[in-house]
């Protein structure tokens, strides 16, 4: 267990910030100011934060449309994120990408994709380049248990294994792809075994616990960076508290029982860590975060929509 004294407050700040941002998104959503499908990570924040904390700024992360948490955890600009959700010209994609395509290249938060599984090979290709150019940055590929069903998962892990590339695969297994349980899509609960057959170590973190995740990731990243032994796979078991897309819950629809959610809610990663933060620190952190979130919303509200001529820019380079 790492013991830097600032670790827990730092992780808590990141967790709390993501939670509060998404709660605000959910709160604002009915106002229709955010006209973009939002896939909230509420309940899953420990994965994004645990994965990103050990990364350097020049390490790179490729994620999915459920990207608010990864974008923020990797250090993505909050104001520009909020403006993007509002469709404003000041957004991180100038209002052209929306919630599903958040990007902040300055911190290695690569653009996310709405097509499941598509960014896995991007991460692999990026890691090929880093090794080719003899850099010691590494790449993280994050995806859900649904992405594992796709051929791109298999082809990408196979190639990364053959080439022994510096890429960490993180499967955020929240048990569901939309409304479909992962055991209706996989014959058994053995994603780590699958990953191992591609020639990489694989491990599973059961607890949705930011410290446990952080520790395993830190070790893996260290090995990737130093040894050149090739890719690594971590499966993080977690749970989404809200519906697949949108601001509400979905337990009433019967495809997953609230009882299934309860243990996860009891172990809510934000609340659990909060208890470990000294009270005074916690107050400061929360106050600062609230201010940042409000500032970002104000920024988004006040920003202009893009000029109409923006419709035609950015299709080609010139």
């Amino acid at each position, binding site marked *: 267990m790492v013991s830097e004294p600032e670790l827990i407050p730092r992780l808590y700040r990141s967790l709390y910030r993501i939670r509060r941002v998404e709660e605000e998104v959910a709160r604002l959503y009915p106002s*229709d100011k955010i006209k973009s499908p939002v896939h909230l990570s509420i309940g899953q924040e420990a994965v994004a934060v645990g994965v990103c904390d050990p990364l350097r700024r020049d390490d790179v992360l490729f994620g999915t449309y459920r990207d608010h948490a990864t974008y923020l955890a990797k250090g993505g600009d909050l104001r520009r994120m909020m403006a993007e959700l509002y*469709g404003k010209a000041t957004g991180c994609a100038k209002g052209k990408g929306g919630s599903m*395509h958040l990007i902040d290249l300055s911190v290695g938060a690569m653009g996310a994709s709405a097509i499941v599984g598509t960014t896995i090979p991007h991460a692999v290709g990026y890691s090929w380049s880093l090794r080719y150019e003899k850099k010691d940055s590494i790449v993280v590929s994050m995806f859900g248990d649904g992405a594992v069903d796709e051929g791109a998962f298999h082809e990408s892990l196979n190639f990364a294994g053959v080439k022994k590339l510096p890429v960490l695969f993180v499967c955020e297994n929240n048990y569901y792809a939309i409304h479909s349980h992962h055991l209706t899509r996989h014959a058994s609960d053995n994603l780590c075994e699958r990953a191992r057959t591609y020639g990489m170590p694989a491990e599973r973190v059961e607890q949705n616990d930011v410290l446990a995740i952080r520790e395993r990731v830190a070790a893996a990243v260290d090995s990737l960076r130093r040894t050149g032994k090739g890719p690594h796979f971590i499966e993080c078991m977690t749970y989404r508290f809200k519906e697949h*897309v949108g601001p509400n819950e979905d337990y009433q*629809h019967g495809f997953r029982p609230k009882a299934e959610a309860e243990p996860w809610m009891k172990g809510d990663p934000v609340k659990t860590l909060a208890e470990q933060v000294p009270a005074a620190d916690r107050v400061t952190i929360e106050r600062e975060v609230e201010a940042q979130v409000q500032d970002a919303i104000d920024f988004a509200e006040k920003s202009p929509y*893009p000029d109409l001529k923006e419709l*035609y820019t950015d299709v080609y380079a010139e």
Partner: protein
Amino acid sequence: MSMPSEERSLTYSAAILEATDQEMKANSKVVVFGIGVDDFKGTYGTTMKLAEKYGADRCWDTPLSEDAMTGVAIGMAMAGLRPIHVHIRMDFVLLAMNQLINIAAKARYMYGGQVSCPVIIRAVIGRSWGQGAQHSQSLYPLFMHCPGLRVLAPATPYDAKGLLLQSLRQQDPVLFIEHRLLHGQKGPVPEAPYAAPFGKARVIAEGRDLTLVGVSYATVDCLRARALLKKEGIDAEVIDVASLKPLDTRTILDSAAKTGRLLVVDSGWTFCGAGAEILAQASERFQDGKPLKTGRLGFAPVNCPTTQNLERAFYPDAAKIAAASFELVRGERREWPVVETAAEVLNFKGPF
């Protein structure tokens, strides 16, 4: 619309559900699958409760494996079944191109006529609500280009039911294209099963001055534009293309020959699109005499942006169609004030 007059009215999605339900009842070989077809949303209602009614073997969820599931559908069709593979977004079909174009479209030919692949691929064109570049494509010209496929794009509940039933009774692979904003549209739909013909464009409003051809949802905007033009004394004929392959250019070009002006409105990009093919055929046919005035509208030649003002500019709409029509007829530009965006656009909040 000039559909068989009927009291009974259904939404487009209910019409698709009804066609599927009726054919599943009539033919145990019909099997529906795709991501979420058996969930509580039932693919925008179009597959609602079919699993309960016909059993988990007749309507089932799949892994996220568009490529293989298309191959599975082909294998099922080769074995004599009638698979319907449903995609909640057309964009995902890009993962299935190899199976569709290298196999489904070619099996009959390359096996010397012995193999039929009557798979039905239902694919929904997304729109609105900031879904962005990867959830708003129509892509039907990719399939129109390749011999061996049937490509349908019903614009009315009547055709949604009739063309789906016809698809289930013929022997070729069908790409069945639905537009998300059509799902909620209502129209007359007879209850008894009926088949609507492939390769037949529908003249849904008659007119003298100009022929407006709509593909899928664009047909709805063509009708709105017709109303705007009427106030200017311009009388537009509106044709719903309905079947993109086979494409009934005869009906379209006969109308164009009558009106002397042809505007095709794609629910997609225009470059190498349906409008391109129709205008090319028009050019080949009208080689003599007075030249035909022609035009195309469709998506802006860019990827679909998410923010609302750009998104509005991206899509063709009644005002743009009216303006382009006015220019073809009167030879001068006239802009319509931005028409109140249509209700189905304004009210759309998902489900995604």
